[in-house]
């Protein structure tokens, strides 16, 4: 169930307190999507297109001494919050260990002829491994606020390093192909097609596989 051959994979790990999970995940996901979103394409005659403008905004975290920049798109923010919220709930309900990972995958669609369904070919996969810690007192929590803030700074730097490698990006599509490369459903920005999935590690260290299976199935598209 490995991703396609030329899909690059990056893994980040963080240890956070329960109440920091959402903000930490959002910070990472938004930073990745900032780099993987463009303005809306407007196709004109003869295959030319113009690109809309992407706005950005600062987000302050409440439980972490940290701030990050995200794309100004409420729709995108909502989508990420929903996914992260589900992940956080799953982590909380899983038991005391609190380990899991959330994945952000960018893919391209390849149309297949009937009776085969479209293939989803991933080209970049970001995985954030999360370890939830429990803290005893307020002093520890304060230190954790700062420490996790510093760690997230490092993660942002790591993400930017990867982005700067200028490795494979899907070719700019023609109008008929644009939905195979970009998510055009948002009204103000246009991220590359992406999907978010997660898995929770149970206390034995083996992963609960339902979500993973779905991800694999989508990838193979059969």
């Amino acid at each position, binding site marked *: 169930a490995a991703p396609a051959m030329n899909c690059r994979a990056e893994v980040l790990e963080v240890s956070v307190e329960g109440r920091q999970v959402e903000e930490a995940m959002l910070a990472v996901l938004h*930073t990745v999507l*900032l*780099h993987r979103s*463009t*303005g*809306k394409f*407007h196709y*004109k*005659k*003869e*295959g*030319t*297109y*113009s*690109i*809309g*403008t*992407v*706005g*950005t*905004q*600062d987000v*302050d975290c409440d439980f972490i*001494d940290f*701030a*990050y*920049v995200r*794309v*100004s*798109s409420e729709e995108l923010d909502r989508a990420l919050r929903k996914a992260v919220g589900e992940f956080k709930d799953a982590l909380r309900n899983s038991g005391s260990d609190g380990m899991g990972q959330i994945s952000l995958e960018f893919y391209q669609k390849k149309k297949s002829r009937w009776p085969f369904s479209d293939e989803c070919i991933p080209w970049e996969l970001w995985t954030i491994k999360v370890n939830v810690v429990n803290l005893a007192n307020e002093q520890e929590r304060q230190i954790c606020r700062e420490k996790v803030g510093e760690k*997230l*700074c490092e993660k*942002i*730097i790591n*993400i*930017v*390093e990867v*982005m*700067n490698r*200028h490795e494979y990006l899907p*070719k*700019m*599509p*023609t*109008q*008929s192909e644009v939905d195979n490369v970009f998510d055009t459903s948002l*009204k*103000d*920005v246009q991220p590359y097609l992406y999907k978010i999935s997660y898995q929770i590690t149970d206390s034995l260290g083996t992963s609960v596989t339902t979500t993973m299976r779905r991800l694999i199935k989508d990838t193979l598209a059969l």
Partner: protein
Amino acid sequence: AMDTDLSSQDRKDLDKFIKFFALKTVQVIVQARLGEKICTRSSSSPTGSDWFNLAIKDIPEVTHEAKKALAGQLPAVGRSMCVEISLKTSEGDSMELEIWCLEMNEKCDKEIKVSYTVYNRLSLLLKSLLAITRVTPAYRLSRKQGHEYVILYRIYFGEVQLSGLGEGFQTVRVGTVGTPVGTITLSCAYRINLAFMSTRQFERTPPIMGIIIDHFVDRPYPSSSPMHPCNYRAGEDNGAVYPSVEDSQEVCTTSFSTSPPSQCVFTVTKAHFQTPPPVVTDTLKVPVMGLAFSHQLSSSRLSYQPAALGVGSADMGYPVLFAGGFNAAHPHQLIGPSKEGGVPPIPSQPAHGTQADQERMCTPLDGVHYSAATPSSSEDTETVSNSSEGKSGSPHDFLETIFIRKVGAFVNKPINQVTMANLDIPFAMFAPKNVELEDNDTMVNPPDSPETESPLQGSLHSEGSSGSSTGNTHDDFVMIDFKPAFSKDDILPMDLGTFYREFQNPPQLSSLSIDIGAQSMAEDLDSLPEKLAVHEKNVKEFDAFVETLQ
């Protein structure tokens, strides 16, 4: 010999990109140290003034300082643009926190496509800069500035000076973009002694240096730009007028194409004029001027209509900024929050502005043509890209839409080139008349890879194609006809370019569409029994035929 392979159009574009990239870099850095949260809106329709497809506001003073520092040059090997961020306490002690460096090295990427790949990578690099400016230690410090200290910025151009950062400073690389003339690199060196200092600690410590160091005397560039506060709040009732002319808001709408790179597309938006109130400009709303340009390549006499600059919208959460008022001769006279907590008034005119600066105020749009009355002082004369377009004395503060058309190598008609000296759009276009024949490139790449990523390449239809200033103000786009290399064929009423354009995206075959397919299948099925009967009759013949094949 560096740029023999680079077409002059590409070179111009590249220089322009680098210039505006430098200006936007400065804006992002300074805005990230204002102490405020920044928020700009996404817009699905390009406005024509958002460089690199990002909504980054332009603080006029910051652009002014950046241009002053650059003095018409671009980052090159050994000539880097540096933004120095430092902290100054209310007692007057100061300390350098960060140096952001925009540098150029010699490593060239000749193959890269300027107008597309470089542009998009610069956009990506700006996004990285947005992200990285929030993760260095100075960010948190700058968010808490105001009472005990302020954060200042200084821009200089030349050699990078890191000695003021103390020992053990760290560097973080924001990113690099290869271009045919060198590799642009953006990085930050930052002091780490503060990394473990919270602002509370900072308050308790004695002055940073034992002696109050005259920050500016020690500078290797004593005459260079003084420090400026990143953030200065005006009093609410202060009706300060900012010099809100913003010349970095030239048209930058780009149009990309997925068709082969045999032609160019340039789309220019003309937004509507608005009467500008004197406030901080907001690039998102800056309209582009009408099509007013001269005919001559190196004319130094350009007539403009003054750009109308949109209102900076208050709901952007953008702080009111310090407008000016730095006296270059006395850098210590920083205007900052006084001990009493009151705020000194902002001078209504920049204290160190020149005559030309002061003249560059927004004027109402009554069709008056503005031309430079005085030679521009610190404003560059836009000779960055073309020495042949040297113009002196005309400020380029206003937006223009310009058309320069790339022509094929074998075009019959000479087309005159209109080149605005102020080539501040990324992809300049010819006006249809009187254009100089460019010895350019466009038929270089044959259309064998229609899905190529080359942008800006596509074709335009003319719509009366005159680029004159009578253009419709309600049309958003003006397209110009493009003539490909091979002239018209008398047999077919279309030329190669039109032919290609028309047929490159053919409609789907009707037999592939489901309805018609189903229909014909039904018909096929109906006729099957008949066909089978015929074949059965001739079965002997078929058998004999098959025998001969074996």
